């Protein structure tokens, strides 16, 4: 017979309380680990992602707008914040750019690009160009351009 069994036989109430204490301690330890993990994750990711949106009417054909939006090598000539873009828009392609967003530090992230045409059940459709970092090493989570009406994604 083990020592703990002998103790349980001598004082069953004491042993039960001891076990409850171990379970309670385990619960507290787990909670502490979770809180530390939450603080660590929070510190790494910062505050939750926020979303900003703007819309503008362009007096040009959808194909012309798409051409401008996807000609990354020409960004430096018109885009005030994206300079020295290196790469092409195609599914899962990686591009590198010099990004100077106002209110944030200048960064040179590597981003993955996607372009797609989506159609909703109501008959509407959008073309989207998405730039997103593979890891959270930039001030933004993703940047998206949507056009309405849609354009064909050629590149």
């Amino acid at each position, binding site marked *: 017979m083990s020592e703990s069994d002998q103790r349980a036989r001598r004082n069953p109430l004491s042993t039960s309380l001891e076990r409850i204490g171990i379970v309670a301690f385990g619960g507290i330890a787990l909670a502490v680990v979770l809180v530390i993990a939450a603080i660590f994750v929070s510190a790494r990711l910062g505050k939750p992602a926020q979303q900003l949106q703007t819309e503008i009417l362009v*007096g040009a054909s959808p194909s012309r*707008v798409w051409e401008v939006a996807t000609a990354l090598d020409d960004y430096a000539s018109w885009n005030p914040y994206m300079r020295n873009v290196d790469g092409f828009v195609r599914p899962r392609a990686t591009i590198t750019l010099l990004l100077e967003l106002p209110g944030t530090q200048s960064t040179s992230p590597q981003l993955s690009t996607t372009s797609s045409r989506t159609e909703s059940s109501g008959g509407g459709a959008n073309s989207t160009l998405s730039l997103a970092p593979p890891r959270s090493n930039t001030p*933004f989570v993703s940047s998206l351009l949507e056009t309405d009406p849609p354009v064909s994604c050629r590149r």
Partner: protein
Amino acid sequence: MQTLNLRGLLLYYQGDAAELLRGLERMAKALKQRAETPEDS
């Protein structure tokens, strides 16, 4: 003239919202200006 509605979205977790929004609007205007400029100019 054919027109197109261009929507820019930005998901971010750092930076000042007002400044970022102004930047997004400025970028949309720049893209509009570029797209409306004849290609041979």
